[in-house]
């Protein structure tokens, strides 16, 4: 009956159930956390960035829907070994492509939560003051907010 792609593809569910580097990183040099208050999704990212501005290790923790958590896992798997330059150049569109299945504007927010947290985390050294913009770069995606209904 379906003419529409199932967004819960096998590899999405695999990442949800068996995530890559889910947990805390003790020796994190950079760290950030943010949420989507309207759906309650939370993602926390710990990074270990070396002197050459390369991401040596990336870990995430969080709570939320399949999309938000599976996409965070995919992102952690992808960014280790990448330079900060690479991360800065890694666009939201590329994040959506990394996730795979096409998402409606409402669910793009879920997928982009970890991307948003990562973009802030590289500017948030541990034991330092939080960045001015707590919620990360001021970029907006998707349509009307999920759950704002009557």
């Amino acid at each position, binding site marked *: *009956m379906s003419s529409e792609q199932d967004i819960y593809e096998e590899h999405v569910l695999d990442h949800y159930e068996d995530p890559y580097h889910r947990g805390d990183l003790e020796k994190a040099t950079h760290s950030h956390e943010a949420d989507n208050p309207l759906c309650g999704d939370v993602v926390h990212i710990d990074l270990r960035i070396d002197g050459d501005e390369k991401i040596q290790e990336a870990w995430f923790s969080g709570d939320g829907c*399949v999309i938000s958590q599976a996409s965070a896992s995919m992102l952690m798997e992808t960014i280790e070994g990448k330079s900060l330059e690479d991360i800065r150049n890694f666009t939201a569109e590329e994040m959506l492509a990394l996730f795979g299945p096409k998402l409606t504007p409402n669910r793009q927010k879920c997928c982009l939560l970890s991307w948003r947290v990562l973009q802030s985390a590289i500017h948030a050294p541990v034991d330092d003051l939080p960045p001015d913009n707590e919620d990360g770069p001021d970029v907006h995606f998707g349509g009307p907010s999920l759950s704002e209904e009557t």
Partner: protein
Amino acid sequence: MGSQSPLVEKKSYLKDTTAFTISELDQIREQFPILGRLTASGAPLAFLDNAASTQRPLAVIDAMSDCFRRYYANVHRGIHTLSEESTAAYEQARRTVAEFINAASDREVIFTAGATASINTVARTWGDANLGRGDVILATIAEHHANIVPWHQLAERTGCKVVFLPITSEYTFDDTVVKDHLARLQPKLFAFTAVSNVLGTKTPVRRWAQLAKSFGAVTLVDASQATPHEPIDVQSLDTDFLVFGGHKMCGPTGIGVLHGKQQLLEDMPAFLGGGGMILRVTTEGFEPAELPDKFEAGTPPIAEAIGLAAAANFLTGLGLERIAAHEHALCKIADQGLREMQGVEVIGPDASQKGGIVSFSIDGVHAHDIAQELDHLGIAVRAGHHCTMPLHRWMKKTSTTRASFYLYNRPQEAERFLEAIELVKTKFTRSGRRRRQRNPQ
């Protein structure tokens, strides 16, 4: 999905009879052309998101279309044929709505942009004029944000405070607690919903209005989830203010109603200033118009009022008691079915205490994933906090999923919904999956 579900045969959910016969329901559904469409996945639509907004019958679509095709013009003061016809239709709409809620006078019916605009109007006029530092507004914890935020804003302006009435662990209200709050806090205003948009819990509007009166509190009732489903008689309920919107009762968006007792409305200062709400304007000031124009500044939602009246007539024609009975029967099927499932929690009181709303959560599955998968199966529900963050916080949940039934839903849709929930549970149950190496792209 299979045409015959073992689940349904086993549990025989359909033994409950609904208020409309199958053929009546077929005729009702023919009035709603949208119900025949498919969802993005190609599945037939089962629209169970009616507490957010309902669909429109032909009677409403045609009434609005007819206005635009034949006689639309701005109302009041226009000395030409179209304006006179539009004015007559607009004022007839007011009388129809007044009759629909049995208002003492059609001057008590103010057309607004929606239920939210109605509440804000009361907050900005009656609230600003009557509340001050230390005064209390009592509201239930289950209110929609529309019946919370305007009071928070009023508190910021005046220094009054908003106190929330707790709910029991059975998702109902305890009259002794209500009485205790009214006696102890002596609130100036008691603002409460007639039906919770999440829990489905009905409040005893008449009893609470009497109680509030005995303690000197003014009442504001959010009837957004009541007027689409049950007869409302503001004189018998004896509420001071009662508000509702058009789009949850088969009417258009962009229109709502503020009902207030005439004396209260007359004593209130005007709110939005502009054309239509004045008797005269000078370089020094203005003199407001009489009710109801006083609160209807600017060009009103003309076709929307006409559409709302058509919706009210449509509901009255079907019979609100029968509509309520029909929805209740569907709600009972869904509520009972969900309660029998492992790992599913129904968020709300027993079906006997609610109308057509069933909210729930599934262990370990996020509400948005439930809604997404249900959509894939053709079923539209709502997931999130449903504009009730304080209630969700009290329940210690970030989000819930809500199915809400209306007069055009079939018992088979409640059954299909239950089958789909079983599928959702299976899909998201952890099954020892392992992450695989990604294919090089």
